[in-house]
């Protein structure tokens, strides 16, 4: 009984180490090709359209409502202390440092990360990746690199759009509905948000972009090998779910880590 438990635990440990190693090698291979031009410009543009442009509406609405909720909560809390002038500062810092990059990344995982994983998983299952290899075409260069570059370009831009939409949402609730003065809202924000905060948000969005594409493409690419994967439609759905869960957890964990290092 004890021996079986120890064996099972040990096997899980070995699996974990093996998968982590595979993920490391996979990321290395991807970046090796990211830094080796020429790149497939058309594929990169296509991916920017998929990851970036097609996520814009979702990001605008999410940002708008997040800003509105922040302003609503912030206003009621600050009102008790007579500090509603700090509303702009609270909304600005909350969005730019934390909520902007994190919620943008979570939205992109749901919209594009899961789709990337499913796409590559189906390609693996239907032998399209084998076909690429047999044509002498490197799947890393052909499939992964455009996704990595597109995500690295798109995520910071989407985060910026999220922040702007959030600030506007905060303005709508704070200034238009609650009557906080427009000057104090923007001046407070201007005074408290400095360049380091913007940098922090930017660095986070870059790290999140890499994490999302890394996990999504890895899970799809090794669908047939991973213990959580398998073959057929069930295998694809399983790795897609795994991708969303693991990426979301990793985003939140790395958000904390980056915050600890940079703040």
């Amino acid at each position: 009984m004890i021996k079986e438990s120890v064996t099972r635990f040990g096997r899980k440990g070995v699996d974990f180490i093996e998968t982590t190693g595979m993920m490391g090698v996979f990321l290395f291979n991807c970046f090796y090709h990211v830094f080796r031009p020429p790149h497939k410009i058309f594929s990169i543009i296509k991916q920017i359209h998929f990851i970036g442009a097609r996520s814009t509406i979702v990001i605008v609405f999410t940002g708008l409502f997040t800003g509105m909720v922040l302003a609503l909560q912030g206003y009621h809390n600050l009102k008790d202390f007579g500090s509603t002038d700090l509303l702009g500062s609270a909304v600005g810092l909350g969005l730019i440092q934390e909520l902007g990059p994190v919620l943008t990344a979570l939205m992109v995982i749901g919209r594009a990360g899961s789709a990337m994983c499913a796409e590559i998983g189906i390609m693996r299952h239907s032998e399209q990746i084998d076909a690429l290899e047999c044509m002498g075409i490197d799947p890393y260069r052909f499939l992964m690199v455009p996704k990595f570059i597109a995500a690295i370009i798109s995520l910071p831009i989407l985060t910026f759009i999220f922040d702007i939409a959030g600030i506007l949402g905060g303005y709508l609730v704070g200034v238009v509905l609650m009557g906080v003065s427009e000057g104090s809202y923007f001046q407070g924000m201007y005074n408290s948000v400095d360049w380091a905060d913007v940098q922090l948000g930017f660095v986070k969005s870059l790290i999140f972009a890499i994490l999302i594409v890394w996990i999504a493409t890895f899970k799809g690419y090794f669908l047939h090998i991973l213990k959580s994967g398998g073959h057929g439609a069930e295998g694809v759905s399983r790795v897609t779910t795994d991708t969303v869960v693991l990426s979301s957890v990793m985003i939140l964990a790395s958000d904390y880590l980056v915050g600890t290092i940079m703040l």
Partner: protein
Amino acid sequence: MEKKKTISEVIKVRDLVSHYGERQILNDINLTIKQGEVMVIMGGSGSGKTTLLRTMLGLNTPTNGDIELMNKSIIGLSTPELYKIRQQFGVSFQGGALFSSMSVRENIQLPLNEHTRLDQKTMDIMCRLKLEVVNLSGFENLMPAELSGGMLKRVALARAIIMDPKLLFFDEPSAGLDPVVSAELDELIVKLKNAMNMTIIVVTHELESAFRIADRITVLDQGSVLITGTVDEVKNCENERVQNLLNRRPRNENVDADEYLKRLTGSM
């Protein structure tokens, strides 16, 4: 006799052993394939023929043994070296493996786009030529989802021959096709061999198809080669397992029912 000696062997498989986990799939396979011949690798389900094909393509790593493609061992080659060798051969997968987001033309032109610097006009002409070869002229703007199973396989074949490869691999070309389309595809394979002097390796379990196209046949069973020979040699082979396959006889037809039941329920 002298003439035979000059025919070069383009594929040499030596002492090949392959495992999936702890299960042995291929057991000491030895095989040579000569230039310009159609070699059919035949066997029942689970006999290891697809594993052998994938290992010859460098997609699976064997446990032991060696494979030489055009006098170069592919075992232990680096990925870029392997990709370079693969540019010299074409592969048609069982399901076609066409990219669903690309049109027929884009699918066929993909190897040209990746490995050559030809202008679009030349690539369009080459694409039309290959579609003509596979009897699909005028289909270049369709998407794979708009094609039937037989058409998908023919487009996959057009893509496989776009670079005029020396070696052509087919995985189950007749699987899932009706007898007429299957016969058409067989004709096409023979036509390609004659017109382009290609070496063609076909993995199939379809007997009629194998006998129609093969110069030589290798019969696999439970991961081992039972016989390699011409169509007549295989047909006249006295090996019981070969005859079982050729006559479509189940493997265990003489099994005692009680014994079989005991074995299944684990009471033996």
